[in-house]
């Protein structure tokens, strides 16, 4: 993306405290064409600073305060780092499988929430439907079965988390070197009772997403779409693995940029750029530089990078998915929703398989080793690759923390999606309701967790500004938390 023209005066106003704090600025060139669009993240979180000084065993619990919707991902990523700090390279079978079960529960509930309650209003009612209908209550009235399925899928995932982490939100189950509980027989049987219903609903959700994408492919193929690199973890045999593996990055054709890279050395492969107009950083693949090295993460990227999925129904779905692009990587932004539902089904299959594994009732929960002073924990969170990097001193205190969260990895892609939408739908010098809707839809495809406050129930609070080449404000629209546009 080109740097801002020095002649363009860009004033970043303090964001009106609409919840979510997403702000988009669209810059026009001298001819009045869209030159650039910027998605500003204006909240300063500070986690990387204030965890310093804390004992390392607190970190898997503390970092969950980053988010009330995706805390498990941070819990597990930090725990993976702390395993290494505690000198443990490999967990006991019970500990690893408990963590995996926790993780798949998280994937299930997060993907269900996003699909059924955040994006389904757009898909079911259309991007330009009346905002008073295009929301979760509207879905519940017109498609009650779907709304209930979304709730029950999420509830099931949350109960899995509670059984494995101790609490639905901000649990404590993963500790340095292992876990602090196993899954009792009673808990196992509780989940086995409903898993086949969960599978049925997951298949239904996948069909809905697939049919929607294929029925509207002609329009969706270009919507906010562009060619990109993709990054994710993959298992040693090339399978999708959402919990552990090596890093693989591919370009838009599928050519491997790096493969099975040890994420302990992630800084040799990934760098972060800071830009003055946003608190969110811009990661890029070091070998390609900041202009060409940005990449996508999350469901779309994971389906593109893996060689196969090791659960049969999700694998069949993956093949159907890639058939749309003749087996090559899928760069269609709106295909994120279809990919997300393939992962929902995969998570359900994994949960079913794990519930039949007697290792979950094992008694060996924790190991110890020789202390280390630096470690990285990586896993595939629902939204994408999540990096947690820590240093710990001899007094057991954290002295450094660097987090690259999933949404940060997708920072540049979201900016480009908004820019593409602005180019395609901006007419004249006014921000229309239609443009506002489409900007939201493009951002929402990435399921971002912008400071963990923009997880909109069908409506994303957003400020969109249109500025000319002198930076003069031409138009401004703000959608508030009640959906009202001003």
């Amino acid at each position, binding site marked *: 993306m080109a740097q801002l023209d020095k002649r363009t005066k860009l004033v970043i106003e303090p964001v009106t405290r609409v*919840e*979510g704090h997403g702000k988009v600025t669209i810059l026009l060139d001298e001819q009045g064409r869209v030159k650039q669009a910027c998605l500003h993240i204006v909240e300063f979180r500070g986690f990387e600073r204030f965890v310093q000084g804390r004992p390392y065993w607190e970190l898997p619990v503390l970092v969950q305060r980053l988010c*009330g*919707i995706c805390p498990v991902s941070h819990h597990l990523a930090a725990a993976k780092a702390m395993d290494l700090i505690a000198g443990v390279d490999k967990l006991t079978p019970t500990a690893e499988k408990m963590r995996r079960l926790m993780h798949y529960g998280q994937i299930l509930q997060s993907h269900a*929430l996003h699909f059924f*309650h*955040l994006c389904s209003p757009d898909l079911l009612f259309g991007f330009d439907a009346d905002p*008073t209908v295009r*929301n*979760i*209550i509207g879905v*519940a*009235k017109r498609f*009650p079965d779907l*709304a*209930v399925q*979304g*709730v*029950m899928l*999420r*509830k099931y995932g*949350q109960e899995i988390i509670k059984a494995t982490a101790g*609490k*639905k*939100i*901000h649990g404590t189950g993963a500790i340095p070197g292992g876990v602090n509980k196993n899954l009792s027989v009673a808990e196992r049987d509780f989940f086995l009772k409903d898993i086949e219903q969960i599978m049925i609903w997951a298949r239904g959700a996948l069909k809905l997403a697939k049919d929607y994408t294929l029925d509207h492919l002609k329009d969706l193929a270009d919507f906010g779409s562009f060619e990109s690199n993709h990054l994710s973890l993959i298992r040693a045999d090339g399978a999708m693995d959402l919990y552990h593996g090596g890093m693989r990055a591919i370009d838009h054709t599928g050519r491997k940029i790096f493969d099975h890279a040890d994420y302990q050395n992630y800084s040799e492969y990934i760098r972060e750029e800071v830009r003055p107009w946003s608190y969110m950083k811009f990661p890029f693949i070091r070998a390609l530089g900041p202009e060409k090295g940005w990449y996508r993460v999350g469901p779309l990227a994971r389906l593109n990078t893996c060689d196969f999925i090791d659960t049969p129904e999700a694998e069949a779905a993956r093949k159907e998915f890639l058939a749309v692009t003749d087996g090559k990587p899928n760069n269609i932004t709106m295909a994120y929703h279809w990919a997300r539902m393939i992962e929902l089904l995969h998570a359900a299959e994994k949960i079913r398989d794990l519930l039949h594994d007697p290792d979950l009732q094992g008694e060996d929960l924790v190991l110890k080793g020789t202390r280390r002073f630096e470690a990285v924990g990586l896993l595939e969170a629902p939204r994408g690759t999540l990096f947690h990097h820590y240093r710990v001193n001899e007094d057991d205190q954290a002295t450094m923390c660097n987090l690259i969260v999933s949404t940060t990895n997708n920072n540049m892609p979201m900016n480009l999606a908004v820019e593409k939408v602005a180019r395609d739908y901006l007419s004249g010098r006014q921000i229309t309701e239609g443009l506002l809707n489409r900007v939201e839809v493009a951002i929402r495809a990435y399921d971002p967790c912008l400071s*963990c*406050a*923009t*997880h*909109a*129930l*069908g*409506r*994303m*609070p957003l400020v969109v500004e249109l500025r000319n080449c002198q930076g003069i404000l031409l138009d401004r629209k703000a959608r508030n*938390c*009640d*959906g009202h546009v001003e």
Partner: protein
Amino acid sequence: MDDGLGPALAERLGQLGVPGITVDADYQLTIEDAASVAAHDVVIFADASVSVPPPFEFKAVEPADHLSFSSHSLEPAAVLALARQMFDAKTKAFTLAIRGYEFEQFGENLTAAAERNLEAAVAFLKLWISACATVASIRGNQEQEDATPTVTLKLSPENLN
């Protein structure tokens, strides 16, 4: 500190072990709470408040006719609306807002004033639950719905004097 009033109340009620009462403490209200609400006849949403007159405010909740946007801040009224819309629930709901004072400091204990307000809230709930049970018993086999007192209480030192 006093943002722990909700979990503290839940802990106290859990210790009472009253039959037919389910106590659940969580970080925030979420969509799936609509399913839990629908499974009960009466639900009380309790939390700390920065502004109600001490010691607490107890009032009925009506289902919302619109939703605030964020899955991070689902209001009790929205949860109730979703429970009714999705599960055809007939649940009656109330909020119990307990006045707190210190929300900036980190600490595991409540302030002394918040602790007193908590005691008052626990005492009130014991009476209220007992009253519900008594009315239900007198009315025999009528539905629990009829037995629920519909009352809005705002207890404050002025009211008590």
